[in-house]
């Protein structure tokens, strides 16, 4: 356990040093979200119909932008190799790293989303549902991002390729996430898509680190 804690606190310290990474995603999320009401005819009915897709899209976009640096610096300075050789299990170390990464890049988005959602005239429990949806889906997406970042590690300009790999895997989460928000605004049953998101979140938690670890091993040798 000790080694996980050490890794975790190290990740946090490094993240503070590279605060621009987290901030970029944060600003992007906020800007995309408030841009739509600004540039379109901002009547309540219209904004309420588009809030679901826009929330999901901006979260997807923001997390995608910051993920290129998920393993790259650690790969270059040899930290990943160290982790691989350390006596703790590599898979659980990856999980620790992913969660630390999520705390820095996605948690701020969820906190600010209450503000952005109210720009779209969402109120009361709707905001909570949006935050819950974002919580579940970013927790899933961070594992997908980790996998993609790991598998494209050795490539110099992975941007376009990452998008191509990440889109088909993430698409179901985006669809079901915006479905949840849409249903909660229409006042219909949200349990179906919420179950799906929870299931995907659990699946990515239990399988994601294994897959990411094997992708890293492939990229290393």
């Amino acid at each position: 356990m000790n080694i996980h804690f050490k890794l975790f606190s190290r990740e946090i310290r490094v993240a503070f040093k590279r605060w621009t990474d987290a901030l970029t995603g944060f600003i992007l999320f906020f800007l995309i979200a408030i841009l739509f009401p600004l540039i379109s005819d901002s009547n309540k009915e219209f904004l309420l119909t588009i809030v679901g897709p826009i929330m999901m899209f901006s979260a997807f976009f923001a997390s995608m932008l910051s993920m290129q640096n998920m393993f790259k610096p650690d790969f270059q300075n040899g930290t990943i190799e160290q982790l691989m050789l350390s006596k703790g299990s590599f898979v659980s170390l990856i999980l620790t790293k992913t969660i630390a990464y999520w705390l820095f890049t996605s948690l701020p988005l969820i906190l600010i989303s209450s503000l952005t959602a109210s720009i779209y005239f969402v109120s009361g429990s709707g905001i909570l549902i949006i935050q819950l949806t974002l919580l579940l889906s970013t927790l899933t997406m961070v594992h997908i991002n980790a996998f993609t970042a790991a598998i494209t590690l050795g490539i110099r300009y992975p941007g376009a390729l990452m998008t191509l790999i990440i889109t088909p895997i993430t698409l179901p989460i985006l669809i079901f996430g915006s479905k949840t928000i849409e249903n909660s605004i229409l006042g219909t049953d949200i349990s179906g898509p919420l179950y799906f998101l929870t299931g995907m979140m659990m699946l990515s938690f239990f399988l994601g680190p294994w897959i990411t670890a094997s992708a890293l091993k492939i990229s290393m040798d």
Partner: protein
Amino acid sequence: MLPRHKRFLGILVTLIGVTVAIALILSSFQDNLLYYVTPSEAIKKIDDDQSKFRIGGLVEVGSFKRKDGSLQSRFVLTDGIESVEVNYIGILPDLFREGQGIIVTGKFDKMKIFIASEVLAKHDENYMPPDIHALKEPTS
């Protein structure tokens, strides 16, 4: 704990987690990602303040009316239990006919008539030549 036990525990926890996750996902499949709702379900939504949605059902035989010289048409959509009156202006797909499965997109107006902005025809998985179809269902 021996490393062997730790590994075993890890695999066990993973398996349980994956099973629960798959169960959750499968249970969500039952009522989710509906491309359309049936007329009976649509009737319940009639008084809600709603956005556009889709209804799928059969065009009731004998209900189709078209205003002469215009694209405006009116028909009743049914699932055998409830029925919904639909109003549509535009070109209908080739498969559209009475008794056919149809999916309409739109919303209810104040007269409880469904104003459709799009009409799509749904085809079932049966293929047969006209003469065999006539033998099977002499009425149609």
